[in-house]
Structures are given as C-alpha cells and as structure tokens.
C-alpha cells in the first residue's frame, strides 16, 4: 500500500511556493504520512506532485463522480481545494475551504489555509476577501506566518487609506528581524502618507542607516532612504533630505531617483555646481527612466543658473531631440501592442506546459517593447492578467484537442453501431438454431431415465455397447434349440454359457454403482453447462436489449458534448479578447503615461530654451 505525504503537508505544498525557502522546508517536514488506499487517489497525487494541476483536478473530479475515492473523501476534498488554489481558481478553492475547514479538527491547517487565501486575494486585488480571510484566523499561526499575516493586514489598511490603523498596528512591532524592518518601512510610509513627516523621519532614518546582511535588506535600506529623502524634499527641507538620498547605493533600482533628488536638494540650496554632479551621472543611463528624462531638463537649468547660457541651450536642444526619439519609440511600441503581436509572442514563447498560480514569464519576447515591459511585468495586475490570459489560451487549446477526440469518438461510435447492426442478424440466426429448451428437456429425460434404472437396479441398462452385444449373443446362444438336446455335449455347452452369463452379469452388477455415479456426474456437469449457457443466453439477450440503449446514451453524450465544447470555445475566445484588451490598456496606458510625461518635458524644454535664448539676446543687447 502506497504511503504519500500527509494531507496537511499536501495542502501546505499547494501554498509552499509562496514561502521563503526556510519556511517551505518546515512545511515539508511535519505531518503524518497518508496511506494511499485508492489507486485513483494516488494517480491524482502523481500529477499534483508534478505541479500539473489541470490534469490532476480533472482526474480528481472524474474519480469523485465515479466514487473511486471512497477511502479518501475528506483528503480528496482538501486536496481539491489546495489544487484549485494552485491553479489560480481561488474563488472555488475558498468555497471548498469554507465548507470543509469550518469543521476541520486541525485548527492549524485551517488557519494556515486562511492565511494563504488572504495572501493570494491580496495579490489579486481582492482586499475585502483578503481581510475576511485574515479575520477567520482564530489561533496563532507559526511565527514566520504570523509576522507575514500582520504585514498583510497593515498593507490592506494602507491600501484602503486607513493610515492611522496601519500605524497603530505597525508601531508595536518589536525586534530586529527582517520582518521587523519591513514593518518599520511600512510604518514610515504610513506616517508620511498620514502627514506625520517628523515621526516618519526618525523611523526611516534608522532604517536607512542599518547595516544590511543581504540584498533584500540592502534594497529595503535604499527604499527607506529614497522615501525619506523625497518626503523631506517635499517638506521643504533639502539639507536634511540630502544625506538620506546620498545613502542610496549608486547601482540599483533606486539610484536614478536618488541621484535626481540629490541634485534637486543642492539646487534648492542654490548649489548648482554641486547639483550638476549627480545629474551629469544620470545622462549616461537609460532614458526609459523618468529620473533620467527629468535630469535632461535639470542639467541645462543648473547651467543657466551658472550663466553657461550657450551650454544650457545645447542641453535643452539635446533633451528635445532625445524626448522626440523616445516618444517615437513609444509610438512604435504602442502600435506593436495594438496589433496584438505582443500577446501572441508572449504565448508562443511559452510552451503552455503548466498553468495557474505559480507560473511566471521566464523570458521576455524579443521586440521593441521588451525594454518597456520589465516595469509592467513587475506589477501584480499585469502579471495576474497575463496568467489569466495564458490560462485562457491553455483552456482553448485543451478544448481544441478534445474537439478532435470527440469527432473521433463520434466516428468510432458510428462504426461500432454499424458493425453491431451487421452482426446482429447472424447472431440471432445462430441463437435461433441453438435449441436450448430442447436440450434442457432431454437432460430432464435422462435424469428421469437414470432414476428408473437406479430404482429398478437395471444394471444391464448401463452396459457398454460391447457388453450389451455380448449379453445379446449369450441370450441368443441360450435360445439355440440344439442346446436343449439331452446329450452330454449340450449339457456342457449350457454350463459354459451359464458361466459366461454369470460372469458378465457379475461384472455388470459390480460396475453398476460406479457407472451410475459417473453418468450422474456427467449429467450434473451437463446440467451446469446448460445452466451456464442459459445464463450466457440471458446475458446476450440483455446485451442485445441494452446495446441499442447504450449506443443511444453514448451518442447523446458525444453529440451533446460537441456543442458544449464549441460554445465554451466561443466564450473563451471572447474572454481572450477582453483579457487582451485589458492587458493592452494597462500596457498602452503605461506607455502613454510615459509619452505624456515626455510631451510635458518637451514643452518645458522648449519653454526654457526660449527663455535661455531670451536671456542670451538680452545679454547681447546690453553688451552692445
């Protein structure tokens, strides 16, 4: 009997990829193993452990409807919920968990499950559902999950704009763990958004000065410094903002914004020469970044302040040219997206081997839009939308394959029906020839005859043909008239014949019981064979009665499935169009926002350039 992981572990596995490695190890080790008592349950696990959730769910649903999982009723329901979750079918998963976990004896599994549901709903933007799932957690989660759950709660509050509640929740966080630091950051952000910049300053500065022991914390430190720097800049405190911004690492996702901010802090302090240093550094970086775009305006502004009017004019012209080129690239990318090619490339670059929650696009397709998509793909909205788009494509392909199979089944069924119709008359003719009832009558006659033989002890009736012939010959000899003569030879012959008759009779009487038993045995076997033949006949009759009904039932199923598949495919196609439009809107919206920003910068650059020319002209007139 196969032993698989415990169902608790199985369920944890569904969610385990959401955990950092240290926690997933813990989830892997606990729980009693489950004994596989139904092979179909083991088969579901075979696909589940390969993370092929779609075929695993289909097999589980099929086995449930065939009552093939009677030994795993609860386990299979829990597993189904977990797999729905993994497949990204979180609403159905929640329905199962709500039903099943309400009475589950293991509160730990229940609380963990609600936690993972809360997390998935949060990532899919279902804030209310996420909050409800968190509210359902009754006991204490394992420490790591508890911290994450608190963070999740705070994030929901921040996203809902309830900053005071988030602040109240986060400010009691103790310790120096990684989670505590993330909590501090969120607290700082909540305070800034709540207008409490002074209180946020202390927290974010503390975080910004920490010594990070891994890349994640290094990144968090940069984020804290950047948030603090800009909060202080907006609060009109450039001198205080500068050290925070200068603490951001020069190479990293936040460095461009930090360099820009340092420059603005210097500019606010009227140290234009200093401001040029970080802004010049930005010139060599990717123009895709808004900070780099903005630096192209900031540099000539500082140069103008330093009376380098001609240089300032050159830089403004460069900026206008660069914005124009970038704007054209954006136009081309928007056109590419509008053509639908981008989404086709997304799916064609991916083999659609797996589906669901854990899928992530591993490689961006080549093309002009690729450089713009890094940012898009980092957003939950786009990623989740893309997952749905991909799942829809998978379902469409799945139904395409089924459609071909169903066509084959329809043909197969027709062929079977035809073959059956052709064979039926021959079978009926053969059956009609076989006189089963006559055979039964004859058997009964034999029974009766044998009973008479036994009751009359008619040993001669069971003689073999040779014995019977011999008996006849003896009787014939006995009746010979010559033997009646009163002479010694006749008397001797009579004695010999009497002896022969006596020996034969003795033999026949001796073998009578044995022969009777053998014949009865043969007759019994014949009776059994006859009964079996009668049963087979009844089965054939039943099959002949059932077969047309079965053909009709199969035909109905096959032909009713065809329109179902077709209808479903149409709905999926419609949904694909909608999903693509949604993704297109996000992508184009993002690119259009960049283009709008570039347009504003271009207007600003032209305006500033005119102003610079104006100054140059004024200075020229004065000098003349």
């Amino acid at each position, binding site marked *: 009997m196969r032993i698989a992981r415990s169902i608790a572990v199985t369920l944890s596995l569904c969610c385990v990829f959401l955990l950092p490695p240290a926690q997933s190890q813990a989830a892997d080790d606990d729980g009693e193993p489950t004994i596989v008592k139904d092979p179909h349950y083991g088969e579901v696990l075979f696909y589940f452990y390969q993370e092929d959730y779609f075929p695993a769910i289909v097999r589980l649903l099929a086995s449930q409807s065939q009552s093939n999982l009677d030994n795993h009723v609860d386990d299979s329901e829990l597993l189904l919920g977990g797999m729905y979750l993994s497949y990204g079918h979180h609403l159905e998963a929640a329905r199962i968990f709500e039903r099943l976990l309400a009475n589950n004896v293991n509160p730990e599994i229940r609380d963990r499950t609600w936690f993972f549901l809360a997390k998935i709903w949060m990532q899919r933007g279902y804030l209310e559902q996420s909050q409800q799932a968190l509210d359902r957690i009754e006991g204490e989660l394992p420490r790591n999950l508890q911290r994450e759950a608190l963070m999740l709660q705070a994030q929901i509050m921040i996203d809902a704009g309830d900053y005071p509640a988030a602040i109240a929740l986060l400010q009691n966080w103790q310790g120096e763990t990684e989670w505590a630091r993330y909590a501090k950051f969120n607290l700082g952000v909540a305070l800034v958004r709540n207008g409490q910049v002074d209180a946020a300053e202390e927290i974010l500065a503390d975080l910004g000065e920490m010594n990070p022991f891994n890349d994640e914390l290094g990144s968090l430190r940069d984020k804290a410094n950047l948030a603090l720097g800009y909060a202080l800049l907006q609060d009109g405190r450039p001198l205080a903002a500068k050290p925070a911004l200068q603490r951001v690492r020069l190479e990293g996702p936040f460095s461009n914004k930090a360099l820009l901010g340092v420059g603005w802090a210097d500019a606010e302090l009227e140290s234009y020469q200093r401001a040029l240093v970080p802004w010049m550094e930005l010139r060599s970086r990717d123009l895709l970044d808004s900070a780099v775009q903005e630096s192209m305006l900031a540099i000539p502004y500082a140069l103008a302040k330093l009376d380098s009017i001609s240089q300032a004019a050159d830089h403004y012209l460069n900026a206008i040219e660069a914005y124009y080129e970038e704007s054209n690239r954006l136009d081309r990318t928007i056109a590419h997206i509008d053509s639908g090619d981008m989404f086709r490339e997304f799916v064609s670059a991916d083999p659609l081997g797996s589906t669901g929650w854990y899928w992530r696009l591993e490689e961006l397709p080549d093309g002009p839009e690729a450089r713009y998509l890094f940012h898009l793909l980092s957003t939950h909205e786009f990623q989740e939308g893309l997952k749905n788009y991909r799942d829809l494509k998978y379902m469409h392909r799945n139904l395409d394959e089924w459609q071909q199979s169903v066509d084959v089944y329809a043909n197969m069924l027709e062929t079977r029906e035809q073959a059956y119709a052709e064979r039926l008359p021959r079978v009926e003719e053969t059956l009609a020839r076989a006189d089963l009832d006559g055979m039964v009558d004859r058997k009964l006659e034999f029974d009766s005859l044998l009973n008479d033989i036994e009751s009359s002890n008619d040993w001669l009736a069971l003689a073999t043909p040779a014995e019977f012939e011999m008996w006849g010959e003896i009787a014939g000899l006995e009746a010979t008239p010559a033997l009646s003569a009163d002479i010694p030879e006749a008397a001797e012959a009579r004695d010999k014949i009497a002896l022969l008759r006596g020996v034969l009779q003795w033999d026949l009487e001796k073998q009578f019981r044995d022969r009777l038993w053998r014949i009865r045995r043969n007759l019994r076997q014949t009776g059994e064979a006859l009964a079996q033949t009668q049963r087979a006949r009844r089965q054939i009759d039943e099959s002949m009665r059932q077969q047309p009904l079965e053909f009709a039932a199969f035909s109905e199923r096959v032909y009713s499935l065809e329109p179902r598949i077709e209808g479903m495919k149409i709905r999926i196609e419609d949904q694909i169009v909608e999903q693509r439009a949604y993704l297109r809107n996000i992508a184009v919206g993002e690119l259009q926002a960049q283009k709008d920003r570039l347009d504003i910068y271009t207007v600003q650059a032209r305006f500033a350039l005119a*102003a610079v020319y104006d100054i140059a002209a004024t200075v020229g007139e004065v000098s003349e």
Partner: protein
Amino acid sequence: MIIRKVLSCLMALMLVISASTSAQEAAEAESRDQFRSLDRDVQDLKKEVLDLNRDLFLLEEELLFPANSQVAFFISMDVGEYFKLDSVSLQIDGKEVANYLYTDREVDALLQGGVHRVHMANLKTGDHELIAIFTGEGPHARDYRRGATLSIEKGIGAKYMELEITDRIKKQQPEFVVREWE
C-alpha cells in the same frame, strides 16, 4: 526671473509626477475593479472547463474501456533507495502493450507517493499472463533490468493491478511486487 519661473515649473512638475497620488489611486482602484470583474469571469470559465473536461474524461474512459473488460495497470514506488526507475514495459499474453519512459519529475512524483496509471486495456474474461519489465539504475549505479510475471484472472467488472517497486533492505536490492487492488 525667467529662470526662477522655469525652476518653479520644474519643481511643480516633479511634485505633480511624484505626488499625484489621489488621481493615481483612483485610476488604480478602477483598474483593480476591472481586473476583478475579468478575473471572476475567468474563474467561472475555469470551473466550467474543468467540469467539461471531467465529463469528457469519463466519456473517453467509458467508451474506450468499458467497465466489464477494463483492466488498469498502475506503477508505484516505495523508498527507491536501490533502484532509480527509467522505464517500464508491459506485455499481456506475450504481446507488448506499453513501454513508458519516465522523466525525473515523474520519478520524483512516484517517490513522493504518486501512482501512475501506465496502461489501460480491454481483456476478455478468463486467464491472462502479464509480464512487467522494469529498467533503471540499480545498486552501485549499475544498469538494472528485472521482470515480474503474474497470472491475471479477469472476471466481470473493472480490474486494477498495481506494480510496486520497493526496497528489500536485507538484500539491498529492489523488489518488484505485482498485486491486485481490491
């Protein structure tokens, strides 16, 4: 004077870009609502497609392998210390009916407790002979090939056979057990 205006414009622009949160938040909320609406539609479709797949799966099985003649052969592994499975070949009544090559991912799934339905067949009632040949890597990383034979008595109704690979710790050898599920 003009430069000061430019500065104020630029600063204002920066603030507009970095602090235009309320408009951005509204747009985000709208986008989130749109996502959720689409997501719900996709979820509904997923449910319906899964149900349809279940119906199709059952139809396929009932049509191709009617319960009366159906025999299913399953492969499972327990421990797997002394044997790394590569492939399984099945012969029924001297005729090869299945030859399955396992991927590492599938072997892992078997080791974790999964059971693979390697073959489905239609057999007439009566006696049949099954030969299963397992190939892979045995003890000391040597090529390993072993066969197991079993007589199958097929009656009326579906029959499930399990071919289980276990470790015989005493002999430090794999063992291949063929048995019927009740």
